[in-house]
C-alpha cells in the first residue's frame, strides 16, 4: 500500500535496491552538496592521499612476487653481472621482479617513486597547514594525527626500501643497528630482539616485511580515516577574502565539481607517477649487489625523508663517548637521537604552545596569510632551515665532489650553518613579513600606485593612487591581530612563573606588530584627498596629439 512510485530505469532500480539497504539517499543528501573551497594549496593533502593509494595498489602487485626470506640462494636470472652470485632470496626475488617478470620493473618503480612523492607531499602539506595556521582550534588534534601520519610514512618508506636486502639499504640497517646498540642499558638487548640475534641475522627482513605490508599500512589507514573524518566534521578551512568568515565555508559543491576535480586528480597524480616511473630509474638495486658487511658504496645515503637523521649523525661533533661508572653512552649516537626527538616533539605540540601564547579560544576557520602571523612564519622558517641543513648534511660527500670542495670544509660549514642558519632565517623572515604587512597597509590606506603623475592647480605634482575595490580591501584588513599579554596576578595575588613565561613569549610574538587598518585611519586617509584628485584619477589619460 505504499505511495512510492516504482523505479523503471536500470539506474533507478539499482539505486532503489541499494538505498533500501544502505541509506544511500540520506548519505547523498547529507554530503552531496557539501562545499569545499578551491585553492591549489589545499590539494597537497590530496596529493599525499592519492599517492598513498598508488603505493598501496602497486605494493599489492609486488607482494605476489617478492619473497621476504633471508635464506641463501644463487642468482640465476637475466642480469649477467650477478649470475651465480650468492645472495638472499629477498634480493633474488627483487631482481626477478626487476628483470624477469613482465610489469615487475614498472610496478616497482611506480611503488618507489610513489612513496617518495607521498612523503614529500605529506611534508609540504604539513608546511602549508603550519604557515596558514590551519592547526588552530578545532584542528589541533588533526595536526597531531597528521604528524603521526608523517612519521608512519617515514617508517613505511624505511621498512620498504630495506626489503630488497641490497648493499645500500643493508648498510642503512647496519647504521640503525649501531644506533640501537648505543642506547643506554637496553641497547644491545633491543638490537638482539630486533635482528633476532647478531647482525644481520635471518629474521630482520621478514619482520620488516610484516611492518611494511601490514602493521604500518593498517596504522596509516586508521589514522587517515580519522584525519579525513575530522576534515568532514570540521569542514575545510578557507583563505581570507570577501564572503569568507569563521562561520561559513565558501567554495564549490561536492557533486559534481569536486567529484570530478578530486577524482580526476587521482588519475593525474597516478599518471604523473607512472610517467616518471616509465622514464627514470629509481633505486637500481642491481648496481649495489647483495648486502654483505664488508663492501660499501661511496655516496651511501638513505631515501630523502630519512636524510635529516643521517645528516644529524654526520654533523654531530666527534669523540663524544661519555662514561658513567665504566658504562659508556655514545653521545655521537645519542645526541642526534635526542635532538631529533626534541625537534619532533616541538613540531607535534606547536598548536598547543601557540594557543597558550595567544589565549585565543575561538574556532578558527579563516586561514592566516603567512605574512599576517610574522612570528609563527619566522619560527616555521627557522624550523625548515634547521631541517634543511640536517638534510643537506646527509650529502656532504656528494656536495664536496660536485662543487670540488674539501669534504671537511663542507662538513664544518654545515655544522656552523646548523646553529646560525635558523637564527638568520627567523630574523630575515620576520622582518620580511612585517615589511609585507606594511606594504599591505599602505595599499589598503592609499591604493596602488598607478605611475600616472598629475599636476594640481596650485603646482604640486602627485602620483595618482588607485584605491582598491571593496573585495581587495576586505582581504587586506581581515586578519587576526594580537597584543602581548600583560602578566596578571592570580587569585592569590601572586604572579606565577608560568604567567611570566607566557607573558614573555607573548611579547616575543606580538611586540613587533603591524595592526590592521582601522576604520578611523581609513577615513582620515581618504579625507586627505581633495575631490579634484579623485576626479582626475577617474579620467582617461589624454591622448598625445601626433604632430605631423
Amino acid at each position: 500500500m505504499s505511495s512510492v512510485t516504482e523505479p523503471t530505469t536500470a539506474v533507478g532500480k539499482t539505486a532503489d535496491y541499494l538505498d533500501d539497504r544502505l541509506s544511500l539517499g540520506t548519505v547523498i543528501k547529507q554530503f552531496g552538496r557539501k562545499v569545499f573551497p578551491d585553492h591549489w594549496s589545499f590539494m597537497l593533502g590530496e596529493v599525499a592521499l592519492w599517492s598513498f593509494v598508488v603505493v598501496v595498489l602497486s605494493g599489492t602487485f609486488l607482494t605476489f612476487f617478492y619473497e621476504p626470506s633471508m635464506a641463501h640462494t644463487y642468482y640465476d636470472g637475466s642480469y649477467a653481472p650477478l649470475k651465480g652470485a650468492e645472495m638472499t632470496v629477498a634480493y633474488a626475488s627483487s631482481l626477478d621482479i626487476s628483470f624477469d617478470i613482465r610489469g615487475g620493473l614498472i610496478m616497482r618503480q611506480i611503488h618507489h617513486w610513489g612513496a617518495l612523492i607521498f612523503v614529500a607531499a605529506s611534508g609540504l602539506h604539513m608546511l602549508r597547514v603550519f604557515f596558514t595556521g590551519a592547526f588552530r582550534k578545532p584542528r589541533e588534534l588533526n595536526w597531531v594525527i597528521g604528524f603521526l601520519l608523517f612519521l608512519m610514512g617515514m617508517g613505511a618508506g624505511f621498512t620498504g626500501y630495506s626489503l630488497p636486502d641490497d648493499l645500500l639499504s643493508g648498510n642503512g640497517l647496519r647504521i640503525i643497528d649501531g644506533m640501537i646498540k648505543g642506547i643506554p642499558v637496553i641497547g644491545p638487548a633491543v638490537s638482539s630482539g630486533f635482528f633476532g640475534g647478531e647482525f644481520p641475522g635471518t629474521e630482520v627482513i621478514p619482520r620488516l616485511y610484516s611492518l611494511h605490508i601490514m602493521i604500518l599500512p593498517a596504522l596509516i589507514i586508521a589514522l587517515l580515516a580519522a584525519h579525513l573524518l575530522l576534515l568532514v566534521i570540521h569542514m575545510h578551512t578557507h583563505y581570507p577574502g570577501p564572503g569568507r568568515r569563521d562561520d561559513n565555508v565558501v567554495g564549490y559543491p561536492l557533486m559534481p565539481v569536486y567529484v570530478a576535480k578530486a577524482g580526476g586528480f587521482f588519475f593525474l597524480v597516478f599518471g604523473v607517477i607512472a610517467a616518471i616511473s616509465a622514464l627514470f630509474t629509481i633505486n637500481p638495486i642491481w648496481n649495489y649487489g647483495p648486502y654483505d658487511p664488508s663492501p660499501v658504496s661511496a655516496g651511501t645515503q638513505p631515501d630523502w625523508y630519512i636524510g635529516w637523521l643521517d645528516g644529524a649523525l654526520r654533523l654531530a661533533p666527534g669523540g663524544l663517548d661519555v662514561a658513567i661508572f665504566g658504562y659508556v653512552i655514545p653521545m655521537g649516537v645519542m645526541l642526534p637521537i635526542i635532538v631529533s626527538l626534541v625537534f619532533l616533539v616541538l613540531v607535534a605540540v606547536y598548536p598547543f604552545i601557540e594557543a597558550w601564547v595567544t589565549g585565543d579560544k575561538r574556532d578558527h576557520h579563516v586561514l592566516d596569510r603567512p605574512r599576517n602571523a610574522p612570528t609563527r612564519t619566522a619560527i616555521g622558517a627557522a624550523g625548515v632551515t634547521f631541517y634543511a641543513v640536517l638534510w643537506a648534511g646527509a650529502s656532504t660527500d656528494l656536495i664536496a665532489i660536485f662543487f670540488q670542495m674539501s669534504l671537511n670544509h663542507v662538513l664544518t660549514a654545515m655544522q656552523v650553518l646548523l646553529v646560525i642558519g635558523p637564527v638568520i632565517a627567523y630574523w630575515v623572515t620576520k622582518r620580511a613579513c612585517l615589511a609585507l604587512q606594511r606594504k599591505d597597509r599602505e595599499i589598503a590606506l592609499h591604493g596602488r600606485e598607478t605611475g600616472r603623475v598629475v599636476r594640481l592647480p596650485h603646482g604640486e605634482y602627485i602620483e595618482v593612487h588607485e584605491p582598491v575595490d571593496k573585495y581587495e580591501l576586505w582581504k587586506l584588513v581581515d586578519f587576526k591581530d594580537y597584543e602581548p599579554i600583560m602578566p596578571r596576578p592570580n587569585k592569590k595575588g601572586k604572579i606565577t612563573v608560568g604567567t611570566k613565561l607566557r607573558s614573555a613569549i607573548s611579547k616575543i610574538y606580538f611586540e613587533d606588530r603591524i595592526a590592521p587598518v582601522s576604520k578611523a585611519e581609513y577615513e582620515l586617509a581618504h579625507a586627505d584627498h581633495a575631490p579634484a584628485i579623485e576626479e582626475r584619477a577617474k579620467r582617461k589619460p589624454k591622448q598625445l596629439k601626433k604632430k605631423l
Partner: protein
Amino acid sequence: MNPQKPMRRRPWALGVVIFLGLILSGGGYAAATQTFEAEFGSPEQVEEGRKLFLANCASCHGTNGEGAIGGPSLIGVGAASVDFQVGTGRMPGQASGPQLYKKPVQFTEEQIAAMAAYVASLAPGPAIPPEEYLRTDGDPTHGGELFRINCAMCHNAVGAGGALTEGKFAPALDGVTEKHIYEAMVTGPQNMPVFNDANLTPEDKKDIITYLKYVEENGSVGGFELGSIGPVAEGLFTWIFGLGFIIAITVWLGAKAN
C-alpha cells in the same frame, strides 16, 4: 774540343729535383726518428724518452727521476705509471692542489711509450699490461664482487666517483680505457692504494674491467639514471620535478577557466 752545348734546362727538371729532395730529406728524417714498435724498451726508445723526460718532467721529478721539490721520485714506478698518468692527461701536472685532474693529453702515443720506456729503465716496476687482460670477456659476476669489496667505497658501486678527505676524490670511471683501468689498479696513482698482482691477480683485474665495461655499455633497464649517485639525486628529482609538476597541475586545476 767541341764547345759544350749549353745544358738545356727541361721545365720539369725543377720539379724532379724538388721531389727527389723532399723524398730524400723526409725519408732521411723518418729513418732517423723512426718509432720503436718493434721492441719496447730498445735503447733508441729509452733515449728518446729520456730527452722528452728532460724537457717536460725533470723540472719537478729531477733530472734522473730521483724526485725534486715539485714531484716525487719516479724510480720504480714502472712504465704503467707513466702510461697512465701521461696517457690520461694528468701529467704534466699543472696547478698544485689536493689532487691532479684529467686534462687533454699532451703527447702522442709514441712519445708516451718512449717516456714510459725511459722510466721503466730506471728501475723495475709495473709494466704496461698485456692485451689478454684488457679484453672484456672475463667474468662480470666475479668482477662485480671484487669491485664492490675493493673499489666501490671510493668510486661508487658502478664507478660514478666519490669523495675522499681534504678535497681529494676518486674520479668517475666511465670513458676510461681498459688499459688505464688496469694501470691505475696496479700502480696506485696518488692516494689510490696499490693493488698488486698478489692482491688482485691479472685475471681478477680483467674480471673487474669486464664488469665496469658491462655496466658502462648497458644503460639502466629502468630509464634515465640521474647520475647513478643514488637516493640524493632521486630525492632532488622528486621535490623539483615530481612535486613541481604535480603542483603545476594543482595550480591549473584550481584556477578559473577563461
